[in-house]
């Protein structure tokens, strides 16, 4: 519990100005479902909160044009129940409604969701806040302090993209589906606006796991744009977890397929719950191109997706589980809209 200033600008441009004027310690806040939690855990310590929720016209959902365009402040629950999204892009609808709980989805925004921080237990529970007496080293939280998850209870940790500094999983579902669909984000910053392919929004941990995103200071996500594709109809977000709701993925797969009869002409596969950033399984995609989808090819693609995976002490099961999750997702996606 630390004091902070609070501003509520009325436009995106004013928000960016407020952020730049506030300087170090400034933080945007939208739905607050993640940031307040991290503040209570003594992980995020913003000095200036810039509340963007009252900015007008930043929550539109446009699905009629060439692209799907979701403005950043659209609630997760609103996008998940959009008619076009539900009909043509089950991959997106499922990624949203399988995340969090209905209450959280009503508050959380599709833009803020992209910046959710890891659920690594050592990251979350080790800051020594009053809720817990635990103090764990964590390079993401305190650069250079070490990583307690490596050699620790790492059942939930990543098997793809980890470094010797950090094995924390990128927690989201929504970004995984967007990565599979080649979405990009529009951002506004002090230097104007630009577009960033979603896959480039995220960094690998490397030796600087504290740096998670490629946004410049003051840059704010204003919209998410998804190129329309017929593959959306042959798509799913398949999420395997320790319980069937209100849990992060042990392994998930976002799959969208271009099909010609039973043959996959092009596959798009994203992986969640297993990697340090939303992961594109390009090797699995290449393996499937031009092949019929059968249980054997689906499982082979799943294994290809994890060919480079490395297990820790307790998370080795994620490699096989992840492969089978991909295989099941491919089967589900292929079975959709066979007409």
């Amino acid at each position, binding site marked *: 519990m630390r004091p902070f200033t609070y501003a509520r600008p009325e436009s995106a441009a004013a928000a960016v100005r407020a952020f730049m004027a506030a300087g170090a310690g400034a933080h945007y806040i939208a739905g607050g479902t993640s940031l307040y939690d991290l503040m209570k855990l003594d992980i995020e310590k913003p000095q200036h909160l810039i509340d963007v929720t009252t900015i007008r016209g930043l929550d539109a959902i446009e699905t009629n044009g060439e692209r799907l365009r979701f403005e950043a402040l659209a609630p997760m629950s609103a996008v998940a129940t959009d008619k076009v999204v539900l009909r043509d892009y089950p991959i997106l609808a499922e990624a949203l409604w399988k995340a969090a709980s209905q209450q959280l989805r009503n508050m959380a925004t599709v833009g803020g969701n992209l910046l959710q921080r890891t659920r690594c237990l050592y990251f979350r*529970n080790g800051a020594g806040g009053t*809720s817990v007496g635990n103090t764990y080293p964590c390079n993401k939280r305190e650069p250079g302090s070490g990583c307690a998850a490596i050699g620790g209870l790492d059942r939930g940790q990543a098997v793809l993209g980890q470094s010797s500094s950090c094995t924390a999983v990128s927690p989201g579902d929504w970004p995984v589906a967007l990565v599979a669909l080649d979405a990009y984000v529009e951002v506004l910053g002090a230097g104007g606006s630009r577009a960033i392919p979603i896959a480039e929004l995220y960094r690998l941990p490397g030796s600087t796991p504290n740096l998670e995103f490629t946004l410049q200071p003051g840059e704010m996500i204003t919209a998410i744009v998804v190129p329309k594709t017929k593959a959306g109809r042959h798509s799913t977000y398949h999420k395997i977890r*320790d319980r069937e*709701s209100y849990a992060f993925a*042990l392994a998930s797969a976002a799959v969208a397929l271009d099909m010609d009869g039973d043959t996959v002409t092009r596959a798009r596969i994203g992986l969640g719950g297993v990697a340090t950033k939303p992961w594109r399984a390009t090797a699995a995609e290449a393996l499937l191109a031009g092949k019929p989808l059968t249980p054997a090819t689906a499982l082979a693609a799943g294994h290809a997706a994890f060919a480079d995976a490395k297990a820790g002490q307790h998370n080795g099961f994620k490699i096989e*589980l992840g492969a089978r999750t991909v295989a099941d997702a491919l089967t589900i996606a292929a079975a959709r809209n066979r007409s």
Partner: protein
Amino acid sequence: MTAPFPNRPRADAREKVMGAARYGADHQVAGLLYAMQVPATIAKGRIAALSIDAAMQVPGVVRVLTSSDFLPPPPATPGAPPPPATLTTDIAYRGQPVALVVAETLEAAIEGAEAIRPIYTVAPAFTSLIDQPGMVREAVKPVTAGDAMRAMARAVTRHKADYVSPPQHHNPIEMLSTTAIWENGQLTIYESTQSSSNTKGAVMRNMRLTPEQVTVKSPQIGGGFGQRGGAQRQTALVARAAMLLGRPVKLVLPRGQIFHNATFRPKNLHRIEIGADASGKMIAVRYDADQQQSREGQFPPDYHESVPMLYGIENYHGTAANLRIDTQAPGYMRSPTPHPSCFAFESAVDELALKLGVDPVAFRLRHRATTDPIHGHKLSSCYLSECLTEGARRFGWERRSLQPGSMTLPDGTQVGWGVASGAYPGSAHPNIVTLRVNADGTTRFAAAGHEMGQGIRSTIEQVLVRDLAIDPLKLEIAIGDTSVAPQHTTAGSWGTASVVPAAAEAAAKLNTAMAELLAGRQVAGNLHRQLATVRRPSLQVEVEHVAVDQGPKDLATLRKGGTALVGPDYSTFTTYSYIAHFVEVHVEPGTRRVRVPRVVSIADCGRVISPRTAESQVRGGVIWGIGAALREATEVDPRYGGWLNNDLADYVVPVNADIGSIDVGFIDRPDPLINALGAKGLGEVAMTGCAGAIANAIHHATGKRLREMPFRIEDLL
């Protein structure tokens, strides 16, 4: 014998749905101060220095209490456990409170708590797992019947295996909290506790107060589950703050602090050997049980209370031990030892039945228990066979194929059907109750008991409404309050059996008193109307009810706020409740998720007093069984101690989406000996055996025997 009771709504259903039920932390009081504990950030050691300066500089902080603000521990009282420690400089476990910050607002209290950074002298080593150096094993007295060694030697078929249950935390939705008011030399505590009497006794002794100076009120509890059965450490801290400051103080513990300070179900290990004779009957059991324990903890490893009562096996040798390490004290958690022991034993029975090639229901039905082999008494009632038979009928058990892995759905999903039994001891305590019927239409019943959602008020209402011509909508049931009646801990499934017989006696006594008052006159209307007619404002009776084998000594113990329990082994009989669970699991072919689409559970709890709340109790027990078997475990990183997954996101309990149909049934036959209503306990037996049925169903589905809970996806890949 009593007739079956009707299915009436829960007594406090409306209040609860309306959000009007008042729990411990809901009590509003003017001038309230807010407190926050500062948790120790080391696993073991001592505070070398603790500065309160930074905290005192936080605007709104009024005081920081440290160890020097507390009296030394009180002298020992024979027969009573010592009250919890207050603040000490010795740190026995991570998360132990080292200071209490009191402030005008909750925010200031938290900010003040975060500003305190004690300097510790860290112990050179600590032990946070039972298989680490520094663990001290301490055996307790074995439990035996017959000659298990000799009988095992002549057994024709034997099964021996190890089973494991992990550490688990209760996690009731309501947080632990205390509100303390010190006024005119009187201390009033509002706290959701299952034992207002224990709480009162502990605070009294820690603060050197007299019984007349302390009142504890616990009218509604948002889930007890055993976490609130003992006195809590925080109560005395908050009480001390209120006394030092002369203002009311409230503390609500954050979830992470509850994980680190509340009791928990310790990890426990079971080595079981069962022997069967040539006729395929179980004749011998050897059973060694070990449990995780804190250095000073007192939670007894009673792993042999239920298992010997299931099947009347004549030769039994059970050992048990505490494995002492550096942790906070473990304690009672729903179906404390019978949940893990019935999981382990009922898994072993399933394995033995399979070895013998016998259907697991038929195998259990060969063993009808009529006596308690440990104490040599008859069982007052045991309808486990009836539970098994009725459960099998409802479940459609005859359609089950014996061979594991033989039932699959078209998509390759493996289907498994499992069965297991459970039992739980039937205990009771005395109750000094007051019943007053008023001419204005109201009725008040005051007794020992605590409402933690199990429905104790509903059971009392059932009996009073059955026996008295009163207005049920204006019936007040005053319990959980040391100022309305002598209180006793409500736990161990003894609540209903310890209060409804007293309610029935009080009702009978009141009807007699009314008849005397009317002296033969015929007066129309209910009791309220009759009193109004004869111009009496009220009629009151008091009853001193004792359980079987009990007398004035037990009433005296109750009056002093002590523990006055009898059972389950009474002087001439033994009483247990029973249950049989039938579970269907589906195991996905690819990712191996385990789903539980349906459960049938049939319980023998004697006469069912409140069918509505009884069914709810069993459903809750089954859901917890599903949680325990498939999800719940609190994890320790031995390099740090403490609990790693200490919130509701990462300590995984089931959600609605994990629960399918749960069909609950009751034998509903009164126990002839335990009390006048024939009611045995229910809350805890509901959960016993459920995890075993799930383990057995998973084996039936997959052919894979899982012996360590929780059974997770990686165990079946």
